[in-house]
């Protein structure tokens, strides 16, 4: 009997049931994808950084002061870098940048160039530079930007350079601020000769840390970036909670409206003698069938998207290019959690059952004739 009535209801109100189903699907998808995005912010930062990191480990001098290169085994995959802060000066505009001088002989060994996109060429001539992808979009009107070194102790130089290539690493820090140039060019500019302040390693790190240098992993570096992410995470979490609450209110009101339209049907069933227990069982069974169908469908859909994004991520920078001047360099990963998906499924089904329960309780407390209204 319950199935007969469930079939009748589903057939009788395909639009109403589909609408409720879609709201259920939306609700569970929001819960799963929203959670994946919020919890994936840190993952995005860490994975984005480590994926584009130019080494698994880094040896740095204290206070970034260049030192003489320590003796390193040739068997390591390493490269020496000279990293200094600088400013691009163009009329009234000053853009803070980081000059990354690298060992050209070891560049292909140490840089994760297979994951990078490079247009143009790496610097060949003395006054050639490569810029980060996002920085380049800011310099699009300048063919020969003038770069000034910030630290007077290293010597104050200003020099015009030609942009020979654009490098896209998907690491926001690198893409937005870095200027790449050979160590020799930067050494000449700073007059530091053989001094270096960074050494990058792929693979095993050195067994001991040379005097005056600090050793850290790329993951440690990425971890330190998370602290600046706290505000963004808090805002996104608040937004997620608000949207989820709105979706829940939408779900409850849609289900309630759906139920309210069934007064006449319930009136007839009660006038035929159907008791409250059977009516409750019928309504809950129908709602469970509907909810389970759409919620599981939504969970599969959003869970699948979530899993894909957690594995491969999505590059928002390519999407942001379409917006023209607004440029966002961000590789987005989501956090995939089976536990949360199951919790979302159960939570959505539970929430979808509350309005029918309320409806049954309310309609059971009035007589069949009142449920019929004036239309007997």
């Amino acid at each position: 009997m319950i199935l007969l009535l469930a079939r009748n209801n589903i057939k009788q109100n395909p639009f109403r049931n589909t609408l409720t189903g879609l709201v259920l699907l939306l609700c569970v998808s929001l819960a799963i994808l929203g959670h994946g995005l919020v919890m994936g912010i840190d993952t995005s930062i860490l994975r984005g950084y480590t994926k584009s990191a130019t080494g698994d480990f880094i040896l740095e001098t204290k206070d970034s002061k260049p030192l003489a290169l320590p003796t390193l085994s040739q068997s390591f995959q390493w490269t020496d870098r000279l990293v200094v802060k600088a400013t691009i000066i163009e009329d009234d505009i000053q853009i803070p940048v980081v000059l990354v001088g690298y060992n050209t002989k070891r560049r292909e060994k140490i840089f994760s160039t297979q994951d990078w996109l490079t247009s143009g060429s790496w610097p060949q001539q003395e006054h050639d530079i490569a810029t980060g992808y996002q920085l380049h979009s800011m310099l699009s009107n300048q063919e020969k930007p003038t770069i000034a070194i910030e630290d007077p102790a290293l010597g104050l130089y200003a020099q015009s350079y030609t942009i020979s290539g654009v490098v896209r690493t998907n690491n926001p820090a690198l893409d937005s601020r870095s200027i790449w140039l050979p160590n020799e060019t930067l050494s000449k500019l700073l007059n530091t000769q053989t001094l270096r302040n960074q050494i990058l390693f792929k693979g095993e790190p050195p067994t001991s840390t040379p005097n005056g240098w600090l050793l850290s992993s790329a993951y440690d570096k990425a971890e330190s970036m998370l602290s600046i992410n706290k505000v963004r995470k808090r805002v996104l979490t608040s937004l997620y909670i608000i949207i989820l609450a709105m979706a829940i209110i939408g779900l409850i009101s849609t289900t309630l409206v759906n139920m309210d339209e069934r007064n006449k049907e319930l009136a007839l069933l009660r006038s035929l003698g159907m008791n409250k227990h059977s009516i409750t069982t019928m309504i809950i069974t129908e709602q469970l069938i509907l909810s389970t169908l759409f919620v599981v469908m939504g969970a599969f859909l959003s869970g699948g998207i979530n899993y894909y994004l957690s594995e491969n991520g999505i590059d928002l920078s390519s999407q942001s290019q379409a917006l023209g001047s607004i440029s966002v360099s961000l590789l987005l990963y989501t956090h995939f959690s089976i536990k949360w998906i199951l919790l979302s499924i159960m939570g959505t089904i539970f929430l979808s059952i509350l309005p029918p329960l309320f409806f049954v309780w309310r309609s059971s407390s009035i007589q069949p004739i009142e449920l019929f209204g004036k239309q007997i």
Partner: protein
Amino acid sequence: MIINLCTYSLKSSPMSIVTQNISKTYGSGSLAVHALRPLSLTIPNNIFLCLAGPSGSGKSTLLQLLGLLDLPSTGSIRINDTMVPNTDSPIRDQLRAQHIGFIFQRFHLMERLRVYENIALSLRITHNKTLHNETELIQEALEAVQLSDKINRYPKELSGGEQQRVAIARAICKKPTLLIADEPTANLDSQTSLHIIKLLHKLHQKQKMTIVCASHDPLLIQGATHQGTLLDGSLEVDL
């Protein structure tokens, strides 16, 4: 509290209904509308009572109270020797399911269920299960209303008269001891009305069913074994 339903179970038919000072008032104070003034009435078995009266006189209200679709404001209803509780109780559901058949003016069929399923629904609610002879009972009811050939049709594929006959089949398939009909011919043309009236007479005569109906239709009123007139919530009845 555990209610022993057996305490309230009805004796087998024949059924008699006794009302004592039942009334129905909507609203309260100066806004109160007395749909039915206190009324005491005894309806013996196997009669065909037709209530007449102008619109708003309380005919439908009385039928709704007798059919246990509504609670009286005052008074009590006794069915055989069982006092019907004046509260929302499972006993009222049980009584409705097993002993009362209600025919509505607007038929109230489930549109997406076939004729067979509409009638089966009533049987399954009454017995709380699917009977092994369900098909036979449904066919029997449909034969009584001469609709055996429409068993697999949907209500929308039937005319108004045919829909009302399906509603009658639904009401009689469980073999109720009391059949209540609220203006069963009001929405039908004269030819179809005549058919329904004949059908009700046949049910009363052949199946010895107690029928209480309300109608404006002179043919239906004249054909009943007993007539009553409701005026301003008061009943004059010749039993």
